[in-house]
């Protein structure tokens, strides 16, 4: 029953709601959606392996120099890491609710939740920037000006190098995520998504949650090593 199927698409059960979104190589929107979801997961698994290398480096050095890592971790801003964990979890909730909103055809709610997630993503980056500034003024950036008065300063510097590497790549992913969610929010505002077609919202959501999961592991590994004083 669709005008678009004149290009020889044999699928008669084509969803009539948004046939314009259907690319010619797929039989129907369902198959198109499943392919896109699979593609996104494949990409996320490559991301897992990308971060996996850094986590392995961390694991090896932590096993080799546990005391240095424990000492260096005491110089993390505990409150900032904890608040940022909560910020990312809340932003993930809003992204999940955004997917729910588009499935239920609430366009305004979709845009609203995406903007909330965006705001929290930016809040995360601001807090992270504040932390980086704190490390900078306290000479905790590896290099010529690095100072550390605990035991084993050489390997404390290794900890900070890994810290900046891992949180830096995570922050880069957050910046990309903010750009992605902005784009999706703009397209949603223009009315591009419907219950029948909203794969870009789903896939941007998958990316956002993945970046959240990376932080879920970075938080205990960098901020919660060993026993610490409260605040």
């Amino acid at each position, binding site marked *: 029953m669709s005008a678009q199927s004149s290009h020889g698409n044999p699928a008669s059960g084509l969803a009539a709601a948004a046939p314009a979104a259907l690319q010619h190589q797929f039989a129907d929107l*369902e198959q198109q*959606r*499943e392919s896109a*979801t*699979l593609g996104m*997961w*494949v990409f*996320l*698994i490559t991301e*897992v*392996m990308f971060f*996996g*290398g850094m*986590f*392995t480096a961390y*694991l*090896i050095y932590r*096993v*080799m120099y546990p005391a240095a890592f424990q000492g260096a971790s005491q110089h993390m801003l*505990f409150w900032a890491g*904890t608040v940022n*964990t*909560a910020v990312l*979890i*809340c932003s*993930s*909730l809003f*992204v*999940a*609710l955004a997917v*729910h909103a588009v*499935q*239920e055809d609430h366009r305004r709610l979709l845009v609203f939740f995406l903007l909330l997630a965006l705001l929290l993503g930016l809040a995360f980056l601001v807090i992270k920037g504040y932390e980086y500034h704190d490390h900078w003024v306290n000479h905790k950036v590896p290099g010529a000006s690095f100072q550390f008065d605990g035991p084993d300063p050489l390997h404390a510097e290794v900890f900070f190098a890994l810290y900046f590497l891992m949180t830096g790549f995570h922050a880069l992913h957050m910046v990309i995520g903010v750009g992605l969610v902005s784009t999706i929010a703009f397209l949603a505002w223009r009315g591009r998504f419907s219950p029948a077609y909203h794969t870009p919202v*789903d896939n941007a*959501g*998958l990316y956002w*949650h*993945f970046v*959240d*999961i990376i932080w*879920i*592991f970075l*938080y*205990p*590994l960098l*901020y*919660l*090593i*060993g*026993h*610490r*004083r*409260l605040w």
Partner: protein
Amino acid sequence: MAETIVRKRTYLVVWAGLMVLTSVTALVSCINLGQWNAPVALAIACTKALLVALFFMHLRYESSKIVWVWVLAGVFWLSVLFFLSMTDFLTRQFLNVPGK
């Protein structure tokens, strides 16, 4: 095979669980458990990651087996990366080889 619409309530319960686990892991890190601080923190992190993957990322409702194949392959190769690397670094002192 239509996609599942997860109830809002489910999302909110999972979110509450994640927030509680975050508070727990932050507070537990202030108690001295000796060797056990790291395993406890990592166990909580794994639980949180699993919650996010299963519910927020809809893995629990994923009917496509090939997605599961990819996810499990990712977990498998990540374990290979960790465990086989550590078989080297944890066993170097077993033999008294110079320049370990």
